[in-house]
């Protein structure tokens, strides 16, 4: 498409939302918005799971409370399903935008360099795409493992505590959890920082806070999530 045609697109008849999502900057804003929702959720997920350290009764009560959330105003698991659908929509948009942008970026440089060096790009920023793929594969496994149980040899319905302990006691399962959560940590380290720029929240006065915010939450979430398989492996939680 020519430059003039690109400008005509700006004036096109599409709804502003359609035009907005079609632009790369719009997609990045959607990735930031969905990313921050998923971050908020994963933070609460980690905090909720800390109940593992309070024993079987507490964790299972908490798991039951999540299922019954909103009852009796809503049917049992009603709020849970609303949340799941909302998160799924976020995940779909986050991944769709990432795939489209990656394609756009690959096409922008058809011939690469023989040799290239990085001066500023962090390891985290350079592994966002593959890190994202690892996280997606892990989420699928994690759901089959501890939510539906197909990937769990000793799955007991409604006994979250026992499922976690017997599941993570297997060394390679624990290793999968550890690797995936390290990938998540790197993804958050760059994502939680760059999302502010994607929506234009940059200012010299607050830029150091962006870095602190991203590092702090990436470390807290990763440390919390890594502690679960490690606690089971070392027998602290049994």
């Amino acid at each position, binding site marked *: *498409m*020519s*430059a*003039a045609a*690109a*400008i*005509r*697109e*700006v*004036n096109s008849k599409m709804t*502003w939302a359609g*035009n*907005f999502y079609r*632009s*790369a*900057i*719009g*997609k*990045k*804003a959607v990735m930031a918005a969905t990313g921050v929702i998923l971050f908020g959720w994963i933070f609460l997920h980690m905090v909720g799971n800390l109940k593992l350290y309070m024993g079987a009764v507490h964790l299972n009560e908490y798991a039951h409370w999540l299922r019954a959330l909103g009852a009796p105003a809503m049917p049992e698991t009603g709020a849970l399903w609303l949340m799941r659908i909302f998160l799924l929509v976020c995940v779909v948009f986050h991944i769709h935008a990432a795939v489209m*942008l990656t394609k*756009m*970026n690959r*096409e*922008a*440089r*058809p*011939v*690469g*360099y*023989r*040799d*290239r*060096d*990085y*001066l*500023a*790009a962090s390891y985290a*920023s*350079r592994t*966002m795409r593959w890190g994202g793929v690892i996280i997606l594969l892990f989420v699928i496994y994690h759901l089959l493992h501890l939510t539906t149980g197909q990937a769990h040899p000793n799955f007991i319905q409604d006994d979250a505590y026992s499922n976690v302990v017997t599941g993570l006691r297997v060394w390679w399962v624990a290793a999968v959890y550890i690797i995936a959560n390290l990938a998540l940590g790197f993804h958050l380290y*760059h994502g939680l*920082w*760059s999302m*502010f*720029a*994607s*929506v*234009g*929240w*940059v*200012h*010299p006065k607050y*830029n150091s806070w962006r870095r602190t915010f991203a590092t702090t939450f990436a470390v807290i979430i990763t440390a919390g999530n890594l502690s679960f398989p490690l606690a089971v492996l070392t027998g602290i939680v049994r």
Partner: protein
Amino acid sequence: MNLKIHVWRQKSREAEGGFVTYSADAISPDASFLEMLDVVNERLMEKGEESIHFEHDCREGICGSCGMMINGVAHGSRGNGLATCQLHMRHFKDGDEIWIEPWRARAFPVIKDLIVDRGGLDKIIQAGGYISVNTGSAPEANMLLVPKAVQERAMDAAACIQCGACVAQCPNGAAQLFTSAKVSHLGLLPQGQPERKERVLKMVAVMEEMFGSCTLYGECEAVCPKEISIDFIGRMNRDYLAASVTTAKKEKVET
């Protein structure tokens, strides 16, 4: 100092290119990188061979003509805010091997050897990198008051010399640093306000036709000879998002 240089040679847009190795012997450490190439070229011409083609003009870092990938880094200065012409051979060691490649991007086709067509950047400027004013006698300078801090920021953005290093270094082949500098230097000043929304929408639309998208690697900022901050990218995103959300259909403009 004696060096071995591997240079990308390509006869024309359509021709296949490849690296050719030359020895650059007895080079003064006080020579600039372009002067080193000049010396190599003189020797090539004495032998009746075709010289290495590269773009250059002012040779003092203000015109934005020169630019090449030097050992995998745009302009080769590794974060010192220098254009290729300001890079001196003392940055290298005797006996070094240097790989020299043209900027690589779909929007920057190689014309010959190290010269690329950077017309894509001009198209972004044509889309909105201007203000529409009546020409005539110069207006009274104090008619529009601009705070000092705003002037400085606008000038930081306006320092862009359109060399294309940001695109060349970006792993995504994105032109966000360039476009954001151009959007910001007008958008920050009162003279740029009437066309502010239209400008950012059009310039971004044209940019996205040719270049990649930003993932905040920060590579562009590290190689920019004018040390333009990636904060301008955030500023452009804010401007673009605000313009997208607030531009009503009837405000839309003719092309």
